């Protein structure tokens, strides 16, 4: 199974949202990282064939996806960023509605809905109207609808938005279990989510992939650029003006700064182990 992105480009007037992006995606979890406006959502919509590209194509197992039409939608699951729902429907009814739209026979849909509601911790809310749901509950229903047809290509645009830490961990485990031999693409601002489950990470900036690799590979790129420096409390803000500071930690009347810098920022700075978040800040420190 392969999803090929071939020089995919999207222009909105003079603005270039996605700029000649290419990639070959096989089974696994792909984390799409980038600041706001990097082009993640535009790329995902084109991968879903709901947004026409200005140029370039997407192929699923060698077939161009817009030409595949319903056959591609049959293997696709998508959670949009601002997922629209019907407030008067219960979670069960909403999922049944989407299942009907996905052409899933009713008995199979009912069974699948029960499984998903249970897996996402929504079994008690199945009969409640969605207008009464919290943001996290709605998001979980959105994830459930994307999984209804057991898709081979699952595209999730910010799936962890609105989820509390426990729900995020639960979702991460669910997706890790689910991925197997499927292609899962998720975008998020929460670097730790990507770090936890992504087999491959794609860093996007100005509509382009600027970096791609596994988490350890990418983290290695940040090694030697992360420093800890202990300074008096009054000087902490001055350091922030000159460097990307990933973290402030107070220790008595002093502050331990975690600084991202190509070179040693000060004599007394000590190198420390890098994380994905450090890598992210290396690239997006100024805009993030």
């Amino acid at each position, binding site marked *: 199974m392969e999803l090929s992105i071939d020089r995919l480009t999207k222009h909105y007037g003079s603005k270039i949202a996605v700029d000649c992006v290419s990639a070959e995606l096989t089974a696994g979890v792909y984390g799409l990282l980038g600041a706001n406006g990097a082009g993640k959502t535009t790329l995902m919509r084109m991968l879903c064939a709901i947004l026409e590209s200005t140029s370039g194509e997407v192929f699923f197992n060698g077939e161009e996806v817009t030409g595949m039409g319903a056959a591609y939608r049959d293997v696709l699951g998508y959670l949009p960023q601002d*997922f629209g729902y019907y407030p008067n429907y219960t979670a069960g009814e909403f999922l049944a509605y989407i299942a009907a739209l996905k052409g899933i026979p009713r008995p199979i849909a009912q069974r699948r809905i029960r499984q998903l509601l249970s897996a996402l911790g929504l079994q008690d809310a199945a009969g409640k109207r969605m207008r009464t749901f919290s943001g996290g509950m709605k998001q979980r229903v959105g994830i459930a609808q994307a999984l209804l047809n057991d898709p081979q290509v699952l595209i999730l645009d910010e799936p962890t938005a609105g989820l509390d830490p426990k729900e995020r961990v639960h979702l991460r485990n669910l997706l890790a279990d689910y991925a197997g031999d499927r292609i899962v693409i998720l975008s998020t601002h929460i670097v730790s989510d990507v770090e936890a489950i992504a087999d491959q990470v794609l860093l996007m900036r100005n509509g382009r992939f600027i970096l791609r690799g596994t988490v350890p590979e990418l983290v290695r790129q940040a090694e030697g650029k992360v420093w800890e420096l202990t300074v008096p409390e009054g000087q902490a803000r001055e350091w922030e003006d000159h460097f990307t500071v990933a973290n402030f930690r107070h220790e008595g009347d002093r502050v331990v700064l975690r600084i991202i810098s190509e070179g040693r920022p000060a004599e007394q700075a000590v190198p420390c182990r890098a994380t994905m978040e450090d890598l992210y800040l290396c690239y997006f420190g100024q805009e993030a």
Partner: protein
Amino acid sequence: MELFRLEHRKLWRKASVRVCVLLCFAYLVVFGGVLSYQWFEFGSADDVTSAFGNNFDGYAMIRAYQARADSYGAYLTDESLQRMVRDIQADNARGIRWENKDVRSTVNSYLWQLYPELEQTDNAYPILMEYYVDSSELTGLYQRRQAALEDFLRSQGQTGGEGAMLLDMNDKVQEPFRYGWVCGWQHVLGSYLPDLGVVMAVFLAIVLGPTFSGEWRSNTAPLLLTTQGGWRHLARAKILCGLAFAAELFALLAAGGVASQLVYLGTAGWDMPIQTVKMLAVAPMNMLQAEIYEYAFALLGAVGFAGVVMLLSALVKSNVLALLLSLAAAWGPAVVAQYLPYGLQKALDLLPLAGSAADIFRTNTFHIFGEYIWSPYLLITVPILTGLACLPFAAARWCRRQRA
């Protein structure tokens, strides 16, 4: 089918839909039906300045009116008409006034249409002919009706082939007319049922206006577009749902209307010809046939109107605009008709729910491809065909917009 079932449930889940149906039912069945029969249409007059000043005794009064009408025999003849006039005048002399909904108002309309030369212009109340005409002069009722009809058609310019067609229809009307209490049927056929379509149009516009435009507000396009069935299946389900809603709303109102009619009016007089309501009508129909026609007119018009509303909903992205356009489709023809030539006015009548079910009492015709067609034939068929013709365009337009 599953999608239709769920779409249908989604529609009925909306509070606005339930409120609309409730209001529509309350206005037509409770206000226009039950309260109208019991109180302000058929209740005995108490305060003559307002129908709402009537007494709350419609049920008993209707029974009394029916009994009085039945006492004049089963057929309308010169003799029965003369007896009615004599009784009205005798009671008037004793200071007893007959209620408006009694046989008096029917007799008054017969006299005006068939015996206009008996009007006394110097009388204090010349329009109340039943109080002063000499009953012995009320003869030749059916000959006079024939002459009045021919005069009327001539005065309307309906001569030649058109006049001949209408007179041919009239020849099938059986004489003498079966006779009973007319005012109840007059209310149903001349007021309640013609209003049914107009009121339904408003509520159909409110409920079905957001059928397609509402999806933009829900922001569901990205979801719908990535489903296997996608927007095309959904468009089909939405259209079926809209048509089903129109039929359901009609069924609810029709059931309520018929039930209140049966309770208050019963079935008496179903076989009277509609000419007992309007003497110069030419259709050979009895009251029951006319009622079936008017209900069919409302149902087919409502389904046709639903089609138009759904097309308008697919054309725009705003619910408010969809509603305004739908209301314009309902009332616009009536508003602009007065500024248009007669031919165009009649053409506008063929839009769903724009014409009137009461055309069965009239001699309106359409002249198409050299043929004269009595207007009710087209008023009942063209609106639904128009509405159904809108549906493929609605689906195609919405699907194209969703993709764009």
